[in-house]
C-alpha cells in the first residue's frame, strides 16, 4: 500500500467517525467549540501516527475511541490548570442567548463521574456493545454491565438534583 493509498484510507475512516471523535473530545475536556477543533486535530494526528499499528482486529470505531480517549486524557493532564469550563468559554465566545441548560446539565453530570465511569458512559451512549466496552477498558463483561447500571443511577440522581436546583 502506497503512502497515498494509506492516507486516503485513513482520511475516509476519520470522516466516517469524525462526529464520534468530536463528541469524545467535548465530553472529556468540556471545551468550547474553538478549542474542540484543535483537540479534534490533535486526536487525528495521534491516530495517524499510530495508524500502522492498527491491525484491524477490532472495529475501527473501537480503535478510534481508544486513541481519542487516550489523547484527551493526555491533554487534560498537560493542561489541567488551563482548562476552561464550558460556561466560561460561553461567556467569552458565545452570546448569552445561546446558553444551553441541557448541554450544561450533561457536561456537569459527566464531570461528576469518575474517569472510568466517564469512559463507560460515553461508550454506552455511543452505542458500543458491552463486550466492546470490555475490550477497551479491560473490564469483564459482567463488570461492565454492573457498572453501567450504577452509572445510570448516579446520572439520574445528579440530573434530578440539578433540575430541582434550576427550577426552584
Amino acid at each position, binding site marked *: 500500500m502506497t503512502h497515498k493509498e494509506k492516507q486516503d484510507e485513513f482520511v475516509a475512516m476519520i470522516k466516517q467517525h469524525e462526529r464520534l471523535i468530536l463528541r469524545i473530545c467535548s465530553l472529556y475536556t468540556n471545551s468550547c467549540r474553538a478549542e474542540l477543533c484543535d483537540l479534534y486535530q490533535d486526536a487525528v494526528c495521534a491516530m495517524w501516527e499510530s495508524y500502522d499499528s492498527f491491525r484491524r482486529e477490532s472495529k475501527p470505531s473501537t480503535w478510534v475511541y481508544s486513541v481519542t480517549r487516550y489523547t484527551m486524557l493526555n491533554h487534560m493532564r498537560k493542561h489541567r490548570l488551563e482548562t476552561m469550563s464550558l460556561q466560561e468559554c460561553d461567556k467569552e465566545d458565545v452570546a448569552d442567548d445561546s446558553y444551553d441548560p441541557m448541554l450544561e446539565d450533561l457536561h456537569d453530570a459527566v464531570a461528576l463521574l469518575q474517569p472510568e465511569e466517564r469512559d463507560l458512559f460515553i461508550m454506552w451512549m455511543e452505542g458500543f456493545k458491552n463486550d466492546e466496552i470490555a475490550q477497551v477498558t479491560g473490564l469483564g463483561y459482567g463488570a461492565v454491565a454492573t457498572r453501567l447500571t*450504577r452509572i445510570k443511577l448516579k446520572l439520574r440522581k445528579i440530573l434530578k438534583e440539578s433540575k430541582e436546583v434550576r427550577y426552584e
Partner: protein
Amino acid sequence: MSKKVYNTKGNRYIKELYKHFSDEMDKVVLPSADELVKMLDQYDGKERKGAPVIVPVVPLKPRRKVWHYAAAVLLLVGLGTAGWFYFGGQEGPLTASTTSDNGDSHSNVLPQREQQETLVADSNAVTLPDALDGTSNDNTFLAQNDDASNNERLYSRDHQHIESFDYDTQIKTDASINGNLADAAMTDTDTAMGMQDGKEATATVTPSNPVVSAGSDHRAVQPETDDNQALVPEDVENKTLNETRHYSDFTDPRQYFYQSSSYNDWMITFGAGVTAMAVVPEFWSGAHTINEKKLAHSSIAPSFKPVVSASITGCMDYGERFSIWPFLYAEINSQGWRAKFDSIPDNPAGCTYTIELKSVRIGAETGVDMEWLVRPRLGLTGGLGVGNYLGLMQRTRGERHLNATGQLMPGAENDWMKYNWDGIPSAVFCATGRLGLRYYFKNDSFLQLGLNYRVCSGDLTGNDKMYLPYSVFCLGYKERTLGMMLVYGISF
C-alpha cells in the same frame, strides 16, 4: 432558556440530553477530507519534538470466555467426583441373589449397618433367624453379633459362604463354607467349615443344642420359629421409633433380634439472629490499571454488620453411606442481601458445593468486595463470624422394620413413611469462617486453598453438635452483573 421540563426518571432524559448534545456537535464545522490530507501532510513533514505520542495498547482480540468453560468443566468434574464418592466409591449395599423353592429368583437388598442390629446379651451368642426353620424360601439370612469384633456376618445357604464385614476395619471377608448350613437346620446335626475372620471356623448346629462354634468361639443359636417376628419384643420395637440408633447405643442385656430399620431424617429450621462479622486484614498484591495508573490495594477493614437471616436445612442421611446437608440460606444485612446454597457433606473429606448470589455495591463495601481493584491478585483473607441461631427444629422421620432378609416385617410395614414429628426448640450457636489463600484471575475466577469451618453447639437436647471443617481446596468463579454477584465454587 429552554422551558421544556423533562421527566428525569428513567434513562430517557439521559438519552435525550445526549441526542441534543450530538445535534449540537453536528453543527460544529470540521475539516473536509482535503483539509485533512493537507493537515496530515503538514504533520508528516513537521519535526516533532519530545517523545512520540504514546498509543495505548488496545486489546484487539476479543475476550475469550475460557474461564467460563473451565469453570463449567470443573463443575462437572466435581459433580462426577462427588457422585463417585457418594455412590460408587463405597461399599455397596449387601445384596444376595437367591432362588426360592419354586424357582423364582429375587434379590434382597439388606439394609446398612445402622439399619441392622442384632442385639444379644452374650457376646458369644449369635442369632440365626428363619433360615434354620427350613420353611422359609429365603436362602439368605443374617447373623450378627455386637461384641468387640464389631462384625456383621452374612450366611448364605445358596452360595455356601460366609461374608463377614468388619465395620472397624472396613474389610469384607468372604469364606466358603465346606458343607451346607441349610442342611444343618433340616437334619439333626451338621457342621459347616470355612474361613471366618481370617481363621478356620466350624459351625455346628443341632436342634436340641443350637450352637454354632467358630473355632473355639461357641455361639448360641436361637432359631426363629414364627415368621420373622418372634424375636422382637414389643417394647423394644416401639422404643426404637424415636431413637437415633448407633451401634454402640444398644446396651440392653436382653437377647433379642432387633429387626429394623431404615429411616430418613429431615430437619427444617427457621431462625433469625444477629451476626457480627469481622473481616481481618487482607493483603493484596498485583496490579490493576485504571487510567494508566497501577493500583495496589491493601485493606484492613473490620466491618460489623447486623444480619437478619433465615435458612432451611435438611439432613439426608441414609445409613453411613450417604449423608449430606443441603443448606439454603437467605440474609438481609445492612449492606445488601445474600442468598446461597451450600451442600455440605457430613464428613470433612467430601465436596462442598456453593452457589451464592449477593448484591454488590462496589465502594460501599470493604474487603472482599474491593477485589475488583486488583487483578490479577493474590489475596490473603481470613474471617470469623460468630452468631447465634434460634429456631424451632422439626424432624420428620420414617422407619420401616426389616427382617434379616431385608423384607418388611409383617405388622411393621405401616411404620414406613409414617413420620414422627418431634418439635425440638433449639438454640444453636455457630462460629463460621474461612482462613485461606485465594488467587484471582482476571475474570474473577479464583483458586482457594484454605479452611472453611463451621463449629456449632448442640441444640437444647445436647445433640447434633457439629464441628465441621468443610473445605480445604476450592475452585470458584464470580460473576458480577446487574448489581448482583454470583459466586459458585466447588470445595474439596
